[in-house]
């Protein structure tokens, strides 16, 4: 920045000395190698409306009207002002990569070269390639130190969980980083990637200490774009995507299902359910009503779900006022098939075979029941130069979101897939011969009910976010001093409605008997509870920034901030912050920084409310030393930085007022005679308060280096160590004779250490006309519980202890194989299994304490937890004359997933098991229907089939807590930007068309179960993730 200023000042003075006005500026503009540059913007100074761009030969000509100076600007090169003349030959100087870059940090900005905290910044454009409707999904693999898990693919409900440098606290709800959009706590999910200028992750104490009590889990700062001086520039992007489900659990057909159900019954010693003739009918599909063979995936899921995204933004302005105005819309459709026309039902035998009069009782559906997500976003960021020393900015964002789901009373958000995953293929015909919908019970009914007759549910979120900011330079008091104030007001209103209807459903048995389960209820509408949240933030800051003798750079910040947050049922939550920062560097060679925050949170008792959080950091740009410059040419830049400091975490789940004892008006009891019998009110202790409860503390240290070789390769490496203590957790050593199990107070007693490394490598190369780049990043974070109040297990039960392990480590049984025979089970040397009825083919758990019994005492540590310890991403790209190709790989490892119990249960009342499991099951029996011997003992990898859903085979063990490591080809993008000569003809400044693929390839270990490695732990149902193909174009005017 400073260099630019100097250049500008010099040029300006030159301009004033040359008083001869020129009317025409013309010439040729070249790059540093002497190649002519195409499309360089040349404008008249003080008259921005007057401008031109260079042609294919780098030539330009401009008639000047007012001044005699031209401004020459081109992306990637320093903007230059020159006195105009004819036949100018200008060699533009490339902008030195990043040297002058400014980085957003907490409550301000800093020069990249003097930042000593662990900070990673990503430009907004880099996130666009991810084309997710939720910004949180765009971070995967792009930002070092950030791990994301995307649990669901459902439109509108698909945000990722974000972890910065792993986890350091004991309770899983309290790991979220603090997320600030333009300095305000806001939901980042709905921010459009196109509106983002930069995305910054603050990781160590030096970077986060200013956020004090809320900084311990890391901080994400999102900065939206602002106006740029100049002619109005319009940019429009339109993209159309097609999503397909990456994978679904593969299901059995009815024949296979019935055969295996019989097998399970034989295993359990129960009578067979399906006869040979039943099986034959399933096989030949001869009796679609009594013996249906439903393929839910084929019948109800379409191949592609469309998504449209469009963004138009205008930026421009004068030296007095600049603006950035952006509008965007997004419409993401669900993956369910359309059965809104009665004629669509013809594809089903069960409908086609109906007599005409019954067919006529079906009606076209006048609404779209498919899940969908629609969003409209309008953002206006305006900066006004009120006077030479006063800046006023006004940011206003408004957003409407509509989330639609299939209509099911008491809707679980994943309901359709819940049913889909767990319904047997022969449970009911879609339509019964009397023209009703088939069902087994209210929970298991023909999916056609949801798609044609059950109405829909619509949730609306309306958001308004506004910020007004005024800054005033106070140079007249002290050079470099300024003051600014900010007022933000956010308001989110959510409400919804439901169109209700329940058609008649009935059970239709294999014997052809029909019984009504639910009679029809009429159409009606109902409201879904409204929720209003709002927050008000006031902030006042005094800043100082001055260079003394161009050697001593001193910066300072004093800030106070107050945040009031109002959620529906809670009392207002209040945070009060006082923040201070001093930065100093000498010739940008030695730098130091002190940050401190004094914060209060209404979550705590008066005496425990405020905390002080300091941090201290040092940096040394070794490469600025003469001995380095003279001797080591290879490395252009080398900086060592280190920090130590303390930050806090006040997120304690949703609990407020942890510190108080409380007695709730809850327990009721019936007293009275037949007429007066009534629930009498009761007062129960609901919470045993802990008056000492306070925030968690994190003592963090970080050592890092920044390196740059040959101006091409940049490396940043960090080692971090965090000791999180005073972690709020409940004691496990309190005997239940206390009778407070339900209300045991949380105490600040846990201690966790988290340490790891981060590495980021950027490599840019230009080979002739080909630009080539690689970005690789990885993070390894390993935490260890140093203290939690744990049951004091004796040494022989060491494997039950969590202390010493990582947070969230998986506990369960260790599987040693299968019981292969009755002889083995009855052998006196085989430990007695107390978990259930044991049969050959059941899982054989290890007797870990050697007491000859398999019971709860054998449950212990088995594997990694859900959050991966190692994650990373690799982006490779190349461009040539407007063609650009890039791809991003992303993956993680050292993690496990517990397969959802319902996916494991072979036959939960009516549910179907998974093909993957069934085909590899353990079986050894003679089929009484066919007299055939079934023997899969040699190839079995899964336990025998059973109809007992509480069987110990389903308990958490090494058989179902499986590695969830994966590697994805997350994005592939191919784009073409029109070359300058064509653009000129079209009077455009940019035209790019692109094709993107997301989640293109996946390598993992969970295919048998049909679940995504990122899906929620122990989940029985989820809307699967998508593979997305997107085509789009961006046009700039």
């Amino acid at each position, binding site marked *: 920045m400073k260099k630019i200023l100097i250049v500008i000042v010099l040029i300006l003075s030159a301009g004033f000395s040359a008083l001869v006005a020129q009317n025409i500026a013309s010439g040729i503009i070249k790059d540093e190698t002497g190649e002519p540059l195409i499309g360089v913007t040349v404008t008249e100074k003080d008259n921005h409306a007057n401008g031109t761009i260079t042609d294919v030969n780098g030539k330009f000509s401009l008639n000047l009207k007012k001044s005699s100076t031209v401004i020459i600007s081109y992306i990637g090169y320093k903007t230059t002002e020159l006195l105009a003349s004819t036949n100018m030959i200008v060699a533009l100087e490339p902008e030195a990569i990043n040297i002058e870059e400014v980085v957003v940090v907490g409550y301000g900005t800093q020069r990249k070269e003097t930042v000593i905290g662990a900070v990673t910044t990503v430009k907004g454009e880099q996130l666009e390639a991810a084309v997710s409707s939720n910004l949180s999904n765009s971070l995967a693999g792009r930002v070092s130190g950030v791990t994301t898990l995307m649990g669901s693919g459902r439109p509108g409900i698909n945000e990722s969980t974000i972890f910065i440098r792993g986890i350091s606290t004991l309770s899983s709800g309290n790991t979220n980083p603090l997320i600030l959009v333009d300095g305000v706590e806001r939901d980042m999910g709905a921010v459009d990637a196109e509106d983002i200028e930069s995305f910054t992750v603050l990781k160590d104490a030096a970077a986060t200490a200013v956020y004090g009590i809320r900084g311990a889990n890391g901080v994400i700062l999102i900065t939206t774009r602002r106006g740029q001086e100049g002619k109005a520039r319009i940019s429009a992007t339109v993209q159309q995507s097609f999503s397909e489900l990456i994978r679904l659990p593969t299901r059995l057909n009815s024949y296979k299902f019935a055969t295996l159900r019989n097998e399970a019954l034989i295993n359990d010693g129960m009578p067979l359910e399906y006869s040979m003739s039943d099986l034959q009918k399933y096989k030949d599909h001869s009796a679609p009503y009594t013996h249906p063979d439903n393929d839910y995936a084929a019948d109800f899921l379409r191949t592609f779900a469309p998504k449209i995204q469009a963004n138009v933004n205008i930026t421009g302005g004068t030296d007095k006022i600049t603006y950035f105005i952006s509008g965007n819309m997004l419409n993401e459709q669900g993956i369910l098939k359309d059965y809104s026309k009665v004629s669509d039902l013809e594809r089903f035998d069960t409908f086609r075979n109906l007599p005409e009069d019954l067919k006529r009782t079906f009606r076209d559906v006048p609404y779209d029941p498919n899940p969908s997500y629609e969003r409209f976003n309008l953002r206006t960021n305006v900066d006004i130069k009120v006077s030479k020393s*006063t800046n006023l900015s006004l940011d206003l964002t408004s957003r409407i979101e509509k989330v639609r789901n299939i209509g099911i009373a008491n809707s679980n958000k994943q309901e359709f897939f819940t049913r889909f995953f767990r319904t047997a293929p022969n449970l009911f015909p879609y339509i019964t011969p009397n023209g009703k919908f088939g069902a087994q019970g209210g929970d298991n009914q023909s999916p056609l009910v949801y798609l044609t007759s059950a109405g829909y549910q619509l949730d609306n979120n309306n958001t308004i976010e506004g910020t007004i900011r005024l800054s005033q330079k106070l140079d007249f008091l002290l050079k470099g001093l300024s003051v600014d*104030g900010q007022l933000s007001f956010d308001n989110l209103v959510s409400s919804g409605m439901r169109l209700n209807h329940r058609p008649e459903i009935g059970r239709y048995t294999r014997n052809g008997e029909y019984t009504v389960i639910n009679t029809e209820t009429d159409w009606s509408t109902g409201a879904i509870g409204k929720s209003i949240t709002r927050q008000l933030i006031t902030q006042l800051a005094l800043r100082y920034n001055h260079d003394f003798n161009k050697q001593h750079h001193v910066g300072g910040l004093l800030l106070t901030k107050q945040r009031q947050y109002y959620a529906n049922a809670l009392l207002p939550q209040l945070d009060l912050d006082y923040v201070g920062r001093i930065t100093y560097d000498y010739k940008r060679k030695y730098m130091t920084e002190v940050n401190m925050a004094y914060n209060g949170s209404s979550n705590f008792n008066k005496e425990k409310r405020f905390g002080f959080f300091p941090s201290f950091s040092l940096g040394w740009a070794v490469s600025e030393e003469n001995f380095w410059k003279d001797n080591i040419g290879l490395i252009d830049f080398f900086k060592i930085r280190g920090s130590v400091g303390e930050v806090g975490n006040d997120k304690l789940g949703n609990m407020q007022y942890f510190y108080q*004892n409380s007695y709730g008006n809850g327990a009721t009891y*019936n007293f009275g005679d037949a007429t007066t019998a009534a629930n009498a009110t009761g007062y129960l202790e609901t919470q045993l308060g802990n008056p000492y409860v306070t925030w968690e503390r994190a003592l963090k240290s970080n050592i890092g280096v920044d390196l740059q070789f040959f101006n091409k390769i940049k490396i940043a490496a960090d080692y971090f160590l965090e000791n999180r203590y005073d972690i709020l957790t409940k004691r496990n050593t309190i005997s239940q004779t206390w*009778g407070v199990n339900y209300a045991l107070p949380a105490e600040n007693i846990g201690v966790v250490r988290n340490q790891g490394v981060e590495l980021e490598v950027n490599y840019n190369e230009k080979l002739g006309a080909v630009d080539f780049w690689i970005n690789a990043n990885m993070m390894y974070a390993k935490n260890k519980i140093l203290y939690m109040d744990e049951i004091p297990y004796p040494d022989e039960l060491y494997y039950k202890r969590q202390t010493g392990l990582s947070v969230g480590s998986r506990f369960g049984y260790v599987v040693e194989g299968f019981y292969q025979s009755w002889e083995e089970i009855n052998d006196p040397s085989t430990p007695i299994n107390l978990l259930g009825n044991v049969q050959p083919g059941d899982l054989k758990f290890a007797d870990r304490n050697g007491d000859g019994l398999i019971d709860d005492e054998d449950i212990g540590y088995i594997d990694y937890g859900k959050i991966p310890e190692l994650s990373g991403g690799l982006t490779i790209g190349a461009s040539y004359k407007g063609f650009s190709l890039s791809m991003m790989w992303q993956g993680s490892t050292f993690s496990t997933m517990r397969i959802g119990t319902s996916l494991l249960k072979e036959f939960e009342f009516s549910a179907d098991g998974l093909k993957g499991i069934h085909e590899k099951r353990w079986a050894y029996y003679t089929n009484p229907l066919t007299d055939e011997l079934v023997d899969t003992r040699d190839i079995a990898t899964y336990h025998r089939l059973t109809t007992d859903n*509480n069987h110990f085979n389903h308990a958490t063990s090494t058989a179902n807590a499986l590695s969830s490591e994966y590697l994805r080809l997350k994005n592939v993008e191919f784009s073409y930007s029109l070359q300058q000569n064509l653009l000129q003809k079209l009077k455009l400044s940019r035209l790019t068309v692109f094709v993107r693929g997301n989640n293109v390839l996946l390598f993992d270990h969970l295919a048998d179960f049909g679940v995504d490695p990122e899906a929620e732990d122990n989940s029985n149902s989820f809307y699967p993730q998508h593979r997305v193909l997107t085509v789009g174009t961006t046009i700039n005017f």
Partner: protein
Amino acid sequence: MKSYSYIFLFVLTVLISCKDDPFNQYPAQNVDFDRIFSDSIRTIGAVNAAYSKLTHVGRYFRLGSQAMQATVTDEAKHASSTTTKVVDDFVNGRWNANNIPDPAWNDMYEGIRHCNLFLPFWENQRDILPITEDTYRRTLGELIFLRAFYHFELFKRYGGIPIITKVLNPGDDMQIGRETYANTVKFLVDECDRAASLLPLNYASYTSHYGRATRGAALALKSRVLLYAASPLVNAEEDYLDGTDELVWMGGYDKERWKTAADAAYDVIALNEYQLYPYIPEGNDEYSFGYFNDAYYGTNREFIFGRLWVQDNTMEKNNAPMGYQNALGLTCPTQDFVDAFLMRDGQPFNWDNPVHASNPYVNRDTRLSLYVYYNGMKWWYTNNREYDSKKSFGLIETYVGGADDASTLTDGVRTGYYLKKFSSREATIFGTEYKVNHNFGFFRYAETLLNFAEAANEYGGPTYSVHGLDARWAINAVRDRAYMPPVDDAVSQNELRDLIRLERRIELAFEEHRFWDIRRWKIATTLKKSIDGMQIIKNPDDSYTYNRQPAIESRIFEKKHYFYPIPQTEINRNANLLPNPGW
């Protein structure tokens, strides 16, 4: 222009600094003691809540969501594959200190804590309670009684237990040990006496208080405690493992304990408050013990104390024969239980007797048809718009191929019987569902009479009399109500013991007595190690052939099972908590 910006900044400064204590927002959702004692309704509310840990029909008794305790005794088999784990563990002896399929330890100590939280105010700070003297005495009695009742529930499971009489808070001693069995008995007896002196005889003039503890409840609890303390399991020369562990043993045999037990039962009788509920005449087939609407809340004088419960049809849904809509048929009485019912003339039923065997359900103790749905019985919902459309005659069909037969159903193998006791004829389970109050009795007068009969007979034989009442009088009262003939005048002490035990088995069936009775009589290890079911074949001439199905489910019982093991996690936490012998 500049001045405007200063004004803006000034206003902001004021906004930030004007509140002197911005955190001062009283969390109104939380109630403290002061507020509870600010009026009488809230004050009594604290006592009301103390009742909430009593088990009830909504929790379907003791074993969790659906299984009844009876299904782990020889009374019944549980027939659902979705809740079998708890039952399986019990009947197969697969339970231990790491797996106790019964939530009482936590639940009861929570109830005890609740009483302890409020008792100090009643005991020491009478003046701050905004209630009248009558209410004060009554509520104090209730809190003392409930705390004793919760301790008793633990006592019968674990033997001597940690007795908790104050609220434990952080900083208190966490290593509280167990009292001996005898000391626990003494504590319970003293507390019952104390409660009895405070509680009213009944709530006849305050009908809205029906359901609260009475003097009779406290004395009935005392009677049961002393009966347990006199029983062979603990009142013996050695403990049940031939040792001398006073945590599960009274410390020696003392015949006088039977006298104390008889006197305690007599005290309940002498209240003159209770009488057996008149048996509904034959032909009508619902036998209410105060469970339903018709004898609801106070009008049934057999009902001493129980948990009143809301209108509900869970019991009916869970237990109605499988063939009916929405019926689950979960609790299936065993053949052993059905066989135990005497003939109407008081003689035992015998399969070897061709008359008995050809028509096994007729001429039996009338209670059989009140407790059990058996083959050929009429589906009995009187207001029966609810006859199931599938079953034109509304008869129970448990024969092979019948609508209620287990072999046509996928959900487990049944016994051929379904449980009828506790189901109301008023309640309906399909169509327009009609729900009925279902109260679960902990103490009823029939038990008191049988307690008395047992204790008096053990102490002095059939003729031993307490204030003119003897054991034969007591058992005959119960038999008479069921139209059964009186016991023989010349009955011996041993014969009468068997008859009393049988009477308890029949009369108190499915009321969570059998499970404990076979323990305190120390006969659990000698009982059959399995239960039997029944297969019924319908012959072409509409007669039936009965094929007994032996050993359809095991009933493993080892000596150590006489008491529950102390939970291992609790032993790990508390070094003073000694385990029970054998575990």
